[in-house]
């Protein structure tokens, strides 16, 4: 397998090179959009983190090494509110657990071996997984994973550093940045809805997550929703053979 960091040179002589090129341009454009969002969201995280009492260095380390936004926000939120390290850690781990689930589709697409697992793992997050699974071809999926991952990593960390340095000078609420994450997650979800059983899974997951908000700790509503996907995937197909050839 070729190095993941040079995906564009691998197959330029292919017969479908024109199609591949157009597909890659579309993927790169979407990845750049996600990068813009990551920069703005990173800016928010940096500002929130130093406002919670973490140093600039601690804030930067979280974005570079932890590199999973929801867990980072949960950790600094709990530490900033005077919560115990154990509470902060459990929230971060519960929210980070979904990245382990994402390992299933990502491993299926990338098939990383031995040492390449070590760096592939770092980039397994919501955005890279969603972008990868949304592509129609295996090459497109691999390209989408790495293009999204690398652009997002750079801009998430740059945004974090800027936010931490500017600190309380940024009013993230006035900029409407709390709408950024749900809007992007919705945009990542939309192309996956035509998938078989996906609308029912989305509806069921929304109901489960909504029901658990007041009774379960942060992170649990999202993890519990995974149960809906697993149940739907394992449920027997009720359609008779021959009726699904639409």
């Amino acid at each position, binding site marked *: 397998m070729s190095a993941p960091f040079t995906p564009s040179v691998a197959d330029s002589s292919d017969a479908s090179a024109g199609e591949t090129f157009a597909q890659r341009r579309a993927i790169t*454009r979407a990845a750049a*959009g996600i990068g813009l*969002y990551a920069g703005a969201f990173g800016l928010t995280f940096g500002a929130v983190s130093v406002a919670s009492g*973490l140093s600039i260095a601690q804030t930067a*380390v*979280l974005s570079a*090494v*932890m*590199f999973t936004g*929801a867990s980072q926000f949960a*950790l600094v939120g709990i*530490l900033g509110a005077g919560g115990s*390290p154990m509470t*902060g*850690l459990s929230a*971060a*781990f519960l929210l*980070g657990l*979904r*990245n*382990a*689930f994402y*390992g*299933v*589709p*990502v491993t299926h697409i990338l*098939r990383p071996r031995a040492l390449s*697992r070590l760096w*592939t*793992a*770092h980039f397994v*997050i*919501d955005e890279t997984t969603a972008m990868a*699974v949304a592509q129609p071809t295996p090459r497109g999926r691999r390209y989408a994973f790495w293009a999204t991952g690398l652009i997002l990593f750079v801009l998430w960390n740059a945004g974090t550093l800027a936010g931490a340095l500017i600190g309380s000078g940024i009013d993230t609420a*006035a*900029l*409407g940045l709390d*709408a950024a*994450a*749900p*809007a*992007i*997650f*919705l*945009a*990542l*979800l*939309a192309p*996956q809805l035509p998938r078989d059983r*996906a609308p029912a*899974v*989305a509806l*069921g997951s929304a109901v489960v997550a*909504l029901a658990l*908000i007041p009774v379960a700790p942060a992170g649990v*509503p999202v993890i519990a929703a*995974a149960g809906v*996907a697993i149940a*739907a*995937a394992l449920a027997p197909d009720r359609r008779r053979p021959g009726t699904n050839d639409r």
Partner: protein
Amino acid sequence: MTATWATIVVAAVGCYALKLAGVSLPESALDDPRVQRIAGLLPVSMLTALVVTDLFDANGRYGADWRTLAGVGAGAVALRLGKSLVVVFLLAIGVTAALRSIA
């Protein structure tokens, strides 16, 4: 090393370990059609649940800011009209910010 640094290092390494566990599944498991169907539907579940909790979870209680809902709603309309991810993002934060500045 301060307690905060220790917490940060444990949290960061732990979250990485979760990602690594996910990509360390054996080939035999990945070739199972049931696992493949789960893999296809998991992001649908997680992304939906994230949207729901982002919008309606106010620190473990139900709560929503109508300006955020309106902003994300505007983004959803743009999405429906086939606009790009950047447009959806900018519209969502723009509408939220504009509503917040006037109300």
